[in-house]
């Protein structure tokens, strides 16, 4: 068991990461409205404590991967905001060279193994990375994120089944934000408790709300430590909420303003700030926020000024070797 760091210093560091994600997403939304970003854009606003807490619970050499709602995890893992914003702008300096876009952030250096667009399709892939770790006798843990909407699809079940059968070191993290596009969980699942899905696979399960980033880190750290030690997978349901629409084109008519306002009052980023303020960290907070603002402004400028990829990039990114015609 690792002893947990509970210092203000760590809390400030985690707050910084959450605030970075928040501000990054807000500026991405603005750039999208200005037509600088195209396609789909799914924001992580409201869910920041999960990616940041999870990253803090993991080692940098552990594998992590997620859905199309991937900016938060990428930034938490350590992707440079420049590379992230440039990807959204379709620039060659982006994390996927402008070829992937919002849904497909990859960062090999930081063990961010991608954002994926087909619901559930990446879950077995996450299990596969754990398979490789076990195969090589390494003690890495893999963590794969998905929404509660993915829990109905076959790949989730096949991934869970195999992970349990083959005792693979993987943590399945269901970010239950209550909605899959416009569908509330009550209309996608026959049970309200997602973690129950582990039972049929004889898998350990956990369930908690993302009340604070420290809480997420603590709960996940205990799980990750156990998975690392025993090589037994775990399904974790983390209750959260997204403050924006499913993507930029979603007006969000399926939920009431009151519900949204109510959830925003529990905003994890704001709460972390209040808590740190109460501990006398106002100065540090202001410094951090200023730094983040500068970083995001710099990322936007960098993205704007960066060159676009040319057609010559297409062949070498399609095959590793000679193009198979």
């Amino acid at each position, binding site marked *: 068991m690792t002893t947990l760091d509970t210092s203000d210093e760590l809390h400030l560091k985690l707050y910084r990461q959450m605030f970075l994600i928040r501000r990054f997403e807000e500026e991405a939304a603005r750039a999208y409205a200005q037509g600088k970003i195209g*396609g*789909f854009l799914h924001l992580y606003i409201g869910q920041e404590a999960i990616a940041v807490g999870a990253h803090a619970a993991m080692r940098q050499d552990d594998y992590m991967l997620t859905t199309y709602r991937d900016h938060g995890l990428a930034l938490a893992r350590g992707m440079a905001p420049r590379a992230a914003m440039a990807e959204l702008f379709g620039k060659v300096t982006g994390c996927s060279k402008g070829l992937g876009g919002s849904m497909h952030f990859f960062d090999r250096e930081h063990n961010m193994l991608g954002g994926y*667009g087909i619901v559930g399709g990446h879950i077995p892939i996450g299990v596969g990375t754990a398979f490789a770790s076990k195969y090589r006798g390494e003690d890495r843990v893999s963590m794969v994120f998905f929404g509660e909407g993915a829990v*109905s699809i076959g790949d989730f079940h096949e991934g869970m089944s195999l992970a349990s059968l083959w005792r693979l070191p993987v943590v399945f993290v269901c970010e239950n934000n209550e909605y899959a*596009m416009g569908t509330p969980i009550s209309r996608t699942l026959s049970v309200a408790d997602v973690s129950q899905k582990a039972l049929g696979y004889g898998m350990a399960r956990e369930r908690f709300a993302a009340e604070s980033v420290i809480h997420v880190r603590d709960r996940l750290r205990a799980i990750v430590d156990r998975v690392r030690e025993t090589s037994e997978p775990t399904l974790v349901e983390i209750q959260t909420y997204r403050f924006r629409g499913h993507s930029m084109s979603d007006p969000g008519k*399926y939920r009431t303003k009151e519900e949204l306002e109510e959830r925003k009052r529990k905003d994890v980023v704001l709460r972390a700030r209040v808590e740190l303020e109460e501990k006398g960290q106002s100065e540090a907070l202001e410094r951090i926020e200023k730094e983040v603002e500068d970083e995001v402004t710099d990322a936007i400028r960098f993205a704007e000024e960066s060159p676009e*990829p040319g057609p010559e*990039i297409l062949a070498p990114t399609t095959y590793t070797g000679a193009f198979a015609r």
Partner: protein
Amino acid sequence: MSTLRYRDAVRAAMIEEMERDERVFLVGEEVGHYQGAYKVSEGMLERFGPKRVIDAPITESGFTGISIGAAMVGLRPIVEYMTWNFSAVAFDQILNNAAKIRQMSGGQFSVPIVLRAPNASARQVGSQHSHAMEHFYAQVPGLKVLAPATPADAKGMLKSAIRDEDPVLFMESETLYNVKGEVPDDPELLVPMGVANVAREGKDVTIIAWSRLTHVSLEAAAALEKEGISAEVIDLRSIRPLDEEAIVKSVRKTHRAVVAYEGWPFGGVGAEISDRIQRLAFDDLDAPVLRVSTLDYPMPYNAKLEQHVIPSVPRILEAVNQVLYRS
């Protein structure tokens, strides 16, 4: 006649057929309460109730299989995928069940099912969300594949599809949903499958297209006219069955053919058409048949690169010039 958008024409076909035949129902993600991811099924839940407009969780394989089962024993499901990309999750159901049940049961069971969704590129949605799936499905005996370009055809052909006894895959396009056109009101006016439409008459070259590329090809034909070249545009509408007669007839007249479509150049519907032309109209050809397809890469996100890889007016013009031996 009414002026309808493509999306409204698709909806009109579903509503008319559901009113005519209570065995018909609609199932898919967000088709009910959300009013359709692209608002195609807007108002239908209110009209028909949750028994016949059914919101399904993200379970493409599951609700496709369930619909195939229901179709075997007498219902007439319309399955909506949010886009055709996600049908890949249900590919096994479509390939191994929908397409095979009739033959492997010796004709005892048929599968009268319609699978429908927007298809192909949709502006910067990246490599996993831009597939032209007709090429995969048209290969499969037992399936029919339609890809109308206009609101009138969308309505008339979807009605034919719903009344058909076999599985019909109906390919719409996000980029066409707002296209307006005149649509007949008569609920008994069907557009048959397997009949192509001459979208524009011409004598110098035949451009064969379907779905969105019909419109791009018409733009190319208008540009060619300014240069004194008369291009005939054939809108296939139906990919399987394929109206080879219409294709051959046009090529006999123009002696040159270009096939323009979204999808990769390796194999696919375009290659099938080229093969038929060279087999059936070899002596009439004055130039090799050329294909203007999506370039041989997964779809890039970057807007310019996306435009670079998908077929465009300039690339059609280039191919036409080539078959006309102009430079």
